[in-house]
């Protein structure tokens, strides 16, 4: 029944929103929690965030051996060095993010009331550099991912609580746009995010086990084996992953930290509310 409700919801959204279908953030989270609890009664609590590794014993063994010697320690050290290096103008990162690096990750994504837009951690890292006349990092990999991963790592154990102020129609609209993005069919292959990460989660696409949306954002930036094999290192931001997903369904990716992906992140991160940050992590 829940699945049917979600399907009907997706249909409404892909036809262009009908207000009759609009649900609140709290309702969406509750529906997904119930849906996955029914789908996998054996996957308990935080293990959901481990995605495929909560569902396949074989994959879990490989993943755990990978985590015994994490491949990303050197990059985390670079991330820490970035935090400790003042800008040429003498300012520090604390001028943008406050003194405590463990209190940065979990403030994002959030609604900026003044500018009426969703702010993401990586988007604000770049904004901070520009405000201090620094050359901004590239948006999807490299230093921005190392820095973001280190900040997320400092926040490990904190509970995710993305807030959508229900009394602010613009914030609600941004969340709604993100939800539409997630449920809408897209690209030449006509697939929605929800097709793989809600309805078919747990099944295999060739050797890949499709992970559930709930828990996705707890461990970003991730180190992906696939990215590491494609040259450079394996680190990438959430928006790098969005772009990759869009390309795979043969849709044109949107700009990292632009409006579309920031709104998507607002919805997407919300779906992990109540779970704890556990970053960075290894993924296939």
């Amino acid at each position: 029944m829940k699945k049917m409700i979600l399907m009907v919801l997706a249909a409404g959204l892909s036809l262009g929103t009908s207000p009759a279908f609009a649900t609140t953030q709290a309702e969406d989270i509750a529906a997904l929690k119930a849906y996955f609890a029914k789908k996998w009664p054996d996957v308990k609590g935080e293990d959901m965030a481990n995605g495929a590794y909560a569902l396949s014993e074989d994959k879990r063994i490989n993943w755990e051996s990978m985590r015994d010697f994490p491949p990303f320690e050197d990059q985390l050290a670079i991330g820490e060095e970035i935090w400790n290096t003042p800008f040429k103008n003498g300012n520090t990162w604390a001028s943008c993010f406050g003194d405590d690096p463990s209190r940065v990750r979990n403030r994002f994504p959030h609604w900026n009331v003044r500018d009426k837009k969703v702010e993401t951690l990586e988007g604000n890292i770049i904004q901070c550099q520009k405000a201090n006349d620094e050359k901004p990092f590239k948006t999807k990999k490299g230093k921005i991912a190392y820095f973001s991963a280190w900040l997320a790592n400092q926040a490990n154990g904190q509970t995710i609580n993305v807030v959508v102020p229900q009394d602010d129609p613009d914030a609600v609209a941004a969340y709604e746009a993100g939800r539409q993005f997630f449920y809408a069919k897209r690209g030449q292959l006509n697939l929605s995010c929800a097709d793989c990460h809600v309805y078919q989660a747990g099944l295999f696409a060739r050797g890949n086990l499709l992970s559930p949306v709930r828990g996705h954002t707890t461990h970003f930036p991730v180190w992906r084996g696939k990215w590491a094999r494609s040259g450079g290192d394996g680190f990438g931001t959430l928006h790098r992953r969005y772009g990759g997903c869009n390309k795979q369904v043969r849709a044109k990716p949107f700009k990292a930290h632009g409006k579309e992906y920031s709104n998507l992140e607002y919805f997407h991160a919300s779906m992990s509310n109540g779970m704890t940050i556990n970053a960075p992590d290894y993924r296939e």
Partner: protein
Amino acid sequence: MKLQDKLSAVALVVMAAISSTNVPMASADEGLIAKGKEISFDRKKGNCLTCHQIAGGTLTGNIGPPLIAMKARFPDKAKLRADIWDMTKRSPHTMMPPFGKYGVLTESEIDAITEFVHSL
């Protein structure tokens, strides 16, 4: 998967029926079937193994049903072709890409895939 169990059962019944009655298999264009298999297995073309189990394919996905007993499931080959061309017409929320409608494959490629899948 319940559906897969049902399909396996259908396959067994069909195989039994075929072997017991010795009905000669309809002659098909072997060349077209071979071409269809190639396109089906090609990741940049049909990429069918991502979701379907097909005889001869390795590390197959399980999002869609296994492609077996296709003649029993699709006595009318045109209906099979129509599903490959645009499955969303019959099942709006399907995961299956509309291969013809969105131009993922050409009409002749879909002809070949139809022959191959119908031979399974």
